[in-house]
């Protein structure tokens, strides 16, 4: 713990950065407003910075959490709304609404984590929670419709929900809970069950995420290299088998190897994405310019290509750096946790975001085969946005517990000195 102390004193960019971000988005929306003078542009120019203010200052002040992490999260969310407003306004309003819901969900998750510390009874909820999650996850198989080759959505009236995004949260909580108590069987059964259902839905991208994060968490909690290697081998074996058995997996790999070979059909999307990347060059064609909407599914899978076309490669790398900063903050928070469960939870949520980002951006730039997952915070989609913000909520919940613990420590050890004097008091 002594090692973490200087980390705490590291001066991180705080409210100044958040103000800059707010200004950036205000001017960006005003710029788009000048294009067609639609009142919605003005409304977003006010609403998005307001959301960022709530998402950074208000949350930070009420819970004592990591300000930099909040700022980065809100920047990425707002970037998604901005790019969507430029390309497809209806999606942007939708996204802005879910951004609001996401902020509330983030706060709820902070509460949830704090609650798991004080209330012991919640442990008895884990089994029912797992059951409900499995049922929820398998719902699309029963009442869903197939879109883009995968059957992973359910439709409730006009609202469509992706259960795998919600189950992502409960998976993390359950897996971390059992791992921290060194009960291997329950989490193994649960995660294998989830993977099986996802395979049936042909949602390979999400399956890869669940599998990768669970494996990495297992490694962290047990330090068992042998079993981790075995798990890794099993995953690779399953991937090879999947490649041999499923025609659509084979096709994905073939497209990845040479998307130009079948340009008019299978390779069309990725080729259009690459053209968008190339059109942007280093500094981009500019917000509101270019023709990013020619990429099929530009609003979710390929939003990174849209960002690169409009803002340029340098900005794209800058966005990557933001995710790296999120991983950095997440890992620091996980390392600062006093309880194994909370450490695993913070790390797991961070890894989930990191792996998902890697998988989708790697697919867009043709480094790895494309799997249809969303880009956390940025891609259009209510379930995805809310669930990503929940993940940050989990991390921040752990951070608020960490700070409580630190305050406690200080009170215990430095009570004579701090009494009445220093500004050590945290609340």
């Amino acid at each position, binding site marked *: 713990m002594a090692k973490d102390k200087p980390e705490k004193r590291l001066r991180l960019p705080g409210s100044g950065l958040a103000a800059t971000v707010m200004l950036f988005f205000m001017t960006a929306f005003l710029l788009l407003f000048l294009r067609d003078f639609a009142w919605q542009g003005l409304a977003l120019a006010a609403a998005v910075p307001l959301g960022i203010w709530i998402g950074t200052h208000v949350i930070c002040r009420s819970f004592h959490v990591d300000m930099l992490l909040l700022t980065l999260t809100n920047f990425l969310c707002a970037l998604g709304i901005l790019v969507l407003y430029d390309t497809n306004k209806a999606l942007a309003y939708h996204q802005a609404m879910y951004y609001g819901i996401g902020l509330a969900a983030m706060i709820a998750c902070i509460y949830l984590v704090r609650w798991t510390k004080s209330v012991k009874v919640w442990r008895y909820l884990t089994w029912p929670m797992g059951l409900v999650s499995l049922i929820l996850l398998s719902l699309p198989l029963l009442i869903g419709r197939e879109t883009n080759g995968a059957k992973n959505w359910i439709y409730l009236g006009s609202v469509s929900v992706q259960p795998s995004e919600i189950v992502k949260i409960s998976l993390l909580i359950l897996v971390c809970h059992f791992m921290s108590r060194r009960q291997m069987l329950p989490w193994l059964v649960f995660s294998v069950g989830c993977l099986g259902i996802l395979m049936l839905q042909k949602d390979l991208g999400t399956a890869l995420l669940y599998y990768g994060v669970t494996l*990495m968490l297992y*490694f*962290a*909690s047990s*330090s068992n290299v042998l079993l981790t290697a075995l798990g890794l081998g099993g995953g690779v074996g399953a991937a090879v088998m999947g490649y041999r058995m499923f025609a659509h997996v084979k096709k994905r790999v073939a497209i990845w190897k040479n998307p130009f070979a079948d*340009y008019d059909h299978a390779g069309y999307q990725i*080729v*259009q994405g*690459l*053209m968008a*990347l*190339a*059109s942007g*060059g280093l500094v981009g064609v500019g917000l509101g310019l*270019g*023709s990013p909407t*020619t990429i099929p599914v530009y609003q979710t899978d390929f939003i990174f290509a849209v960002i690169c076309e409009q803002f340029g*490669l340098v900005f*794209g*790398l800058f966005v*990557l750096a933001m*995710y*790296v900063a999120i*991983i*950095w903050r*997440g*890992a620091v928070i*996980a*390392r600062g946790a006093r309880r*194994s469960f909370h*450490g*695993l939870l913070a*790390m797991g949520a*961070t*890894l989930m975001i*990191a*792996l998902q*980002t*890697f998988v989708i*951006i*790697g697919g867009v*730039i*043709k*480094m790895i085969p494309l799997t249809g997952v969303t880009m956390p915070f940025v891609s259009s989609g209510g379930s995805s946005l809310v669930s990503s913000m929940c993940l940050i909520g989990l991390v921040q919940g752990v951070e608020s517990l960490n700070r409580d613990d630190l305050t406690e420590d200080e009170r215990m050890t430095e009570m004579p000195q701090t009494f009445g004097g220093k500004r050590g008091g945290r609340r």
Partner: protein
Amino acid sequence: MKQQRRQFKFLAVLMFSLFLVLAFYGGYSVIQYGNRWFSSSRNPRVRSQKENVMAGDILDRNGIILAYTDTEGERHYQAEEASRRAVVHVLGDRQGQVANGVESFQTAYLYGFQSTFPELVRSFLSGESRRGDDITLTLDSRLCTQMMLSFDAHEKTRGLRGAAVVMNYRTGELLGEISLPNFDPDRIDEAVYQNPGQPFWNRATQSIYPPGSTFKTITAAAALMNLPDIENEQFTCTGELPVDNGFIHDFGNARHGKLSFQNAYRVSCNQVFAQVALRMGDQELKKAAEKAGFNDNFLFRDLVVENSTYPADNRTEAEVAASGFGQSAVAATPLHMCMVAASVANGGVMMEPILLREVRSTLGDLRYEAKTRVYTQAMEAWQAEILDGYMRDVVVNGTGSRASVSGLTVCGKTGTADSTQNGEPISYGWFIGYLREESLPYAVCVLVEDVASGDGGGSTAAPIAADIFAYLRDHDGK
């Protein structure tokens, strides 16, 4: 707990490295492949820009206008049909039928995608329609016309398909490049589409052919490196060499008897080169070929060139022996074989071929200026020096005598490659060579498809090369 914290750090570092790879791969591929992706005729951005922007002019090295846009926005090419046809594969056409011609590959300049912000503002304020940048090529269009006419000037090559390339071996500048059959970009009619010779296809850069005996240049370089005393050895050519279950014969079933390595190169003896290839082994020959650019992914800045191939491992003796004289799945584009000859002339240094000399904005500002770039060290300088002597010998006393031109020191190598095309046997005649002249640093490659039986590179391609050298002697700098 402590261990868990350490693993957290490990996982975070793992994720950092993944993202670092992501960033480098993304940056690398956009910088390396960006123009190839962007200039694709399938890029809808280009299509929409073409409606709003007038394409810039394209000029050759002597200032001859190859393509321009009139005030109506109509694209025009040169007035004479022969000149239009000669450069059509380099230049491209307004329909984009030729893949990666300047008209399509340089879209970023021609259609003003590179315009700076002040320029955009200026053109917006002036109210005139926007114009793209003007491009000056390193190409000599008159030379290209001569190269094309030369095919028809000789009886043996009249009407045949083929390709020819001329480049400056010191700078890599491409002076001439033709592909036959060609077509008139102003009259693309049904006959052109139906032509079985595929006139849209640029044979100089898009087709890979077995290089035949011209590849002996690379086998010889490898042999000089790996078999130290080879220059003093005596070889025997009995007329047929048994390898595996078959025999290797020479062109015209010649029997050369006892001969030195240099003489084997001069008379182009397959048997000696098959023996040499087998003695060195597949790996050493492959290494020499790859050093000269085979199996490499050509990512030249100005040109899209099909990759040349040297086959993969695990090959039979007969295959390796045949590779020694440029057969058995060894394949290269005429442009690449021109670069091989150029590297011998340039002390082993292979220059990257360049086609753009400069690009200027509508206002005359210099946007881009050609920089000579070394592509690779194809062989060591001492190897190049020995090969230079061999190639001179080929033209003075050997199979390439018809490439000689009075008053010039011509060096070269002929080749005749056998292959099949659509199930029919076909022979390709090759000549690669260069001028050993300080003031005329030019390398040439001529390829003739489907030469008559009994004819080879020496009787078909070499005379065309001689015409090209003579033209360069008479017109250099004009």
